[in-house]
């Protein structure tokens, strides 16, 4: 094995370009997966990793809010549960429980600034040694007196004096600090009492003490304190056992076994198979060309006593060596890239911990790339074992039997895959993916036969294309492999493109606006008229020149909260519109202006009915025998009210308007808590006082274009690179043919057309077969994604399909013809 590894390693080093190409192709998935996993792991800060930024140098952290004299219920195995009365502990009560310790107050909460937005705030004395490491001073000095704050770097822009409207005071910015785990997050830090007020121990949230102790707090101490109702975290324990890190939890679940849905296993398996298959078929032709170059070398080894097994192993070892190299290179680049990406993202506000990755994901992916390399080398290895030593040594063309793949096996797999797709069409997406993989594997097996068949159709083509197709068909191992790579990617891209586009169209068509497009509603969930007046005043200031239409909401009797008025469907048929009449906000009560506004026009009949006390409903299915059912969470409801259906100007708009008289008749108490207006969204945010919320009707706002572009990008990358590699190999192979063409007077244009023809043939076959497969799978996906009550939305993104099916092969042709080296080759003796 050592001799074989040495041979492969040396051969890889001798042809550096080709080896690098193969390594790059195999390493790509490893790089991508390792990069993403490393970036996510580095950005996820576990409790242990974030210990210093959350606790500084403290030995323990005690929360102010806990229980007093709790009842402890032992559950065995050292576990217990507690119940009792909530209690806010004071430093005086706690001090005796921590003998010799120093308690340094600490509190984290959000704080509102003059722009009415809330920002994370922290109160702690950063000058105290116990808080060392929590924040890094990057500018100015730390707060030393009440009324002084330090801010995080992004908040520098807000000026040197900040207003705290809730406390009616201003604070002075004296420095800039950075949270090592989130350098660009928003934050203010002050001494206790500045940001949140004197009563820092109200027990609501985020308050406690950093505890500086003479000795670490051990498990027994923690147990004792918790049983007293005190929430305490020990640095020593957290460092020892880590903490409840969500990722570690997930891994624990993974290793202890939990119910994994079969569809997920099938889908995941299919995905792995697709990765190996794609890599193998992409790298396969490069190995095949390597084999051709090494034929004499292998014949020499055979002459020296190398058996078929030896030759097969030598070529397979090439795959192992290059797969191994790719695994290491991909993982190394992925780790570096992931950490770099996490760092860059942290400069835009995301969190960052120490460089970290998930080896449980990275190692299997590396193994997968080694397997991919090995699989890619298997066919050339089998060919190497079959080659005739005497023929090669005599310089005759190798009499390796040219196989037409395994068409019967391929057909059987395709039929099985189509049947599976049909069976899976109404189930989960993962099953459809698995079924599609079966079809793709079948097509891979069928591809050499298909390439040979299509080659026969070449006789009517112009010379360069005829030559290209004939050459591609003759070297069908190489051609079929590249075409299969293109096919697999196209199939996946088309399936997802059609599936998700249909889903998008379906969602878009089912979207129900609750008010006319381009209108804004401001709703106030506030108990007093004064506060509502503040909201209205703020709205008028924020949107100068806007005309507001007031509306009422229902007030729960004996309460100061709004109640939501709904129109429940009363059985029978009901279109998508009655799924959310009034949306999350409920039906408004109002006057004729409101009716006109929501209706989008003047409608005398509707106005007359409204004036007569009838509820105007925009959804016909909800009105039965001239009545609509109204629900509200209070006594006497649901109740029926006289109603009339009127179609609003805005198609599909749902909802209704209740006239005051009808509300009164139903015994509903109302109060003005809603404003409607026309509104053009601007860049700045609509700042409203607390208790107010707004809803802007923009129509369906989930755009499909980015996803389709991303899919197109994937297809572009694989189709063009796969085709390019195969065409380059073909060009290298057909140098003698090119030399002959040149010698008999073929112009450079003819040679370029020949290369373009090769590229077009490979990508064309691949894309066409892939598109058919992908369309079938995509249509199956639409069932899974859009089927409701027997109706399915099938929508084809035609531009996308056209781009993939026509655009990409054309692009591959043009690129191959334009970019491939095309110097006239010398006319050498050829071993035929």
């Amino acid at each position: 094995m050592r001799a074989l590894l040495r041979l492969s390693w040396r051969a890889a080093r001798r042809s550096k370009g080709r080896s690098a190409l193969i390594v790059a192709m195999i390493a790509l998935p490893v790089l991508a997966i390792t990069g993403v996993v490393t970036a996510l792991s580095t950005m996820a800060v576990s409790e242990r990793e974030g210990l210093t930024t959350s606790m500084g140098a403290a030995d323990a952290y005690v929360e102010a809010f806990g229980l007093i004299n709790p009842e402890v219920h032992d559950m065995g195995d050292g576990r217990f549960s507690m119940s009792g009365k909530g209690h806010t502990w004071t430093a005086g009560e706690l001090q005796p429980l921590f003998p010799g310790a120093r308690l340094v107050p600490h509190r984290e909460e959000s704080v509102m600034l003059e722009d009415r937005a809330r920002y994370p705030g922290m109160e702690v004395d950063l000058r105290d040694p116990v808080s060392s490491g929590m924040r890094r001073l990057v500018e100015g000095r730390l707060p030393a007196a009440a009324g002084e704050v330090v801010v995080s770097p992004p908040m520098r822009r807000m000026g040197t004096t900040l207003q705290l409207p809730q406390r009616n005071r201003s604070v002075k910015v004296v420095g800039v600090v950075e949270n090592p785990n989130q350098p660009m997050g928003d934050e203010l830090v002050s001494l206790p009492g500045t940001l949140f007020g004197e009563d820092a121990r109200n027990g609501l949230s985020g308050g406690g003490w950093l505890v500086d102790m003479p000795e670490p707090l051990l498990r027994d101490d923690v147990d004792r304190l918790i049983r007293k109702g005190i929430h305490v975290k020990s640095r020593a324990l957290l460092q020892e056992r880590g903490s409840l890190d969500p990722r570690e939890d997930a891994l624990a679940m993974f290793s202890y076994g939990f119910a994994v849905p079969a569809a997920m296993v099938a889908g995941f398996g299919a995905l792995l198979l697709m990765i190996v298959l794609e890599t193998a078929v992409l790298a396969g032709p490069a190995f095949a060309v390597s084999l051709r170059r090494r034929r004499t070398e292998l014949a020499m080894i055979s002459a020296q006593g190398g058996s078929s097994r030896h030759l097969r192993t030598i070529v397979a070892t090439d795959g192992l060596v290059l797969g191994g190299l790719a695994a290491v290179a991909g993982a190394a680049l992925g780790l570096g890239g992931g950490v770099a990406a996490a760092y860059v993202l942290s400069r835009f506000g995301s969190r960052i911990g120490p460089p970290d990755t998930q080896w449980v994901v990275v190692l299997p992916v590396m193994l997968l790339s080694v397997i991919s390399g090995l699989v890619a080398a298997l066919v050339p290895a089998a060919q190497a074992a079959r080659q005739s030593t005497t023929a090669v040594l005599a310089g005759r063309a190798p009499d390796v039997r040219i196989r037409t793949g395994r068409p019967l096996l391929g057909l059987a797999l395709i039929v099985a895959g189509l049947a599976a797709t049909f069976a899976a069409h109404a189930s989960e997406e993962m099953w459809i993916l698995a079924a599609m993989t079966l079809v793709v594997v079948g097509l891979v097996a069928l591809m050499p036969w298909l390439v040979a068949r299509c080659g026969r159709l070449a006789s009517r083509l112009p010379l360069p294309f005829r030559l290209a197709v004939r050459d591609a068909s003759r070297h069908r191992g190489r051609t079929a492999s590249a075409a299969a790579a293109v096919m697999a990617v196209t199939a996946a891209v088309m399936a997802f493109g059609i599936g998700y586009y249909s889903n998008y169209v379906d969602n878009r068509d089912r979207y129900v606006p609750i008010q006319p497009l381009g209108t804004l509603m401001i709703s106030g969930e506030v108990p007093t008229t004064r506060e509502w007046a503040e909201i209205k005043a703020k709205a008028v200031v924020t949107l100068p020149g806007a005309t507001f239409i007031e509306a009422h909401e229902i007030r729960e009797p004996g309460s100061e909260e709004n109640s939501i008025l709904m129109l429940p469907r009363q059985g029978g048929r009901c279109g998508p519109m009655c799924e959310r009449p009034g949306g999350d906000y409920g039906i408004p009560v109002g006057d004729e202006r409101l009716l006109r506004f929501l209706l989008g026009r003047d409608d005398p009949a509707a106005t007359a009915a409204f004036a007569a006390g009838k509820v105007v409903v925009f959804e016909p299915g909800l009105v039965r025998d001239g009545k609509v059912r109204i629900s509200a969470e209070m006594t006497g409801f649901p109740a029926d009210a006289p109603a009339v259906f009127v179609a609003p100007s805005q198609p599909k708009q749902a909802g209704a308007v209740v006239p005051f008289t009808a509300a009164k008749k139903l015994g509903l108490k109302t109060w003005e808590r809603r404003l409607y207006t026309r509104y053009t969204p601007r860049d700045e945010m609509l700042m409203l006082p607390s208790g107010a919320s707004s809803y802007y009707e923009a129509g369906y706002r989930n755009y499909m274009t980015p996803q389709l572009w991303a899919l197109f990008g994937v297809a572009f990358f694989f189709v063009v690179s796969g085709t390019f590699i195969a065409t380059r190999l073909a060009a290298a192979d057909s140098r003698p043919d090119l030399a002959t063409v040149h010698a008999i007077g073929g112009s450079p244009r003819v040679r370029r057309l020949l290369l373009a023809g090769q590229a077009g043939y490979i990508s064309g076959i691949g894309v066409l077969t892939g598109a058919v497969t992908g369309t079938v799978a995509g249509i199956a996906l639409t069932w899974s994604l859009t089927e409701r009550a027997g109706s399915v939305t099938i929508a084809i993104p035609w531009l996308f399909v056209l781009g993939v099916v026509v655009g990409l092969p054309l692009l591959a042709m043009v690129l191959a013809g334009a970019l491939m080296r095309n110097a006239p080759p010398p006319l050498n003796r050829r071993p035929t």
Partner: protein
Amino acid sequence: MSFVRLAQVSRHYGEVHALKRVSLEVAEGELVAVMGPSASGKSTLLNVAGGLDLPTSGTVTVDGADLAQVRDLPALRRRAVGYVFQDLNLIPSLTAAENVMLPRELDGVRTRRARAESLAVMEEVGVANLADRFPDEMSGGQRQRVAIARALVGDRRLVLADEPTGALDTHVSDEILHVLRGRADAGAAVLLVTHESRYAAWADRVVYLRDGEIVDSSLLEQVR
């Protein structure tokens, strides 16, 4: 006693009769030269004698073993037969010593021992100083000497050399023939294909082939 024996050996490739009922014996310590024009069947004779190719009819015996009965012909080549060709001899990615070691390593011999054996035989043919050079760092003559060392490594006693001097100048060719002669004198059976009668003079016996048939077989004295 003959080390390799061909009895009534024929080899047909379809309609082409490369060898026709050829009988030939080469004894240990004997150097036999095979001469003849192009396409006379010289290389086929060599391929059949070493088990690279199998005869259509007739028997080939190497060291007493009938090749038709040998199940593992590559193993026979690793242990008993060494080939030297005109070119394409060495694997470019391996050093001289690694090339010589190859048959032993393929045979499962541990690297350290294979290297020791290869250095010993390279010493014998005078190329021990080239052990760590790659083929493209050596002259044509040096490459052929290394190839001969590889053909001999591991106590192999049949050397089949197919035009080993075809690509070399006269002086270097003489050196190669000298080495082959020396190996024969040390007890190896050497079958040498050449089309230059000058080198046939180094042989104990010369066999003339034409159209796949032996037309003459004469002892060295008779040639002289």
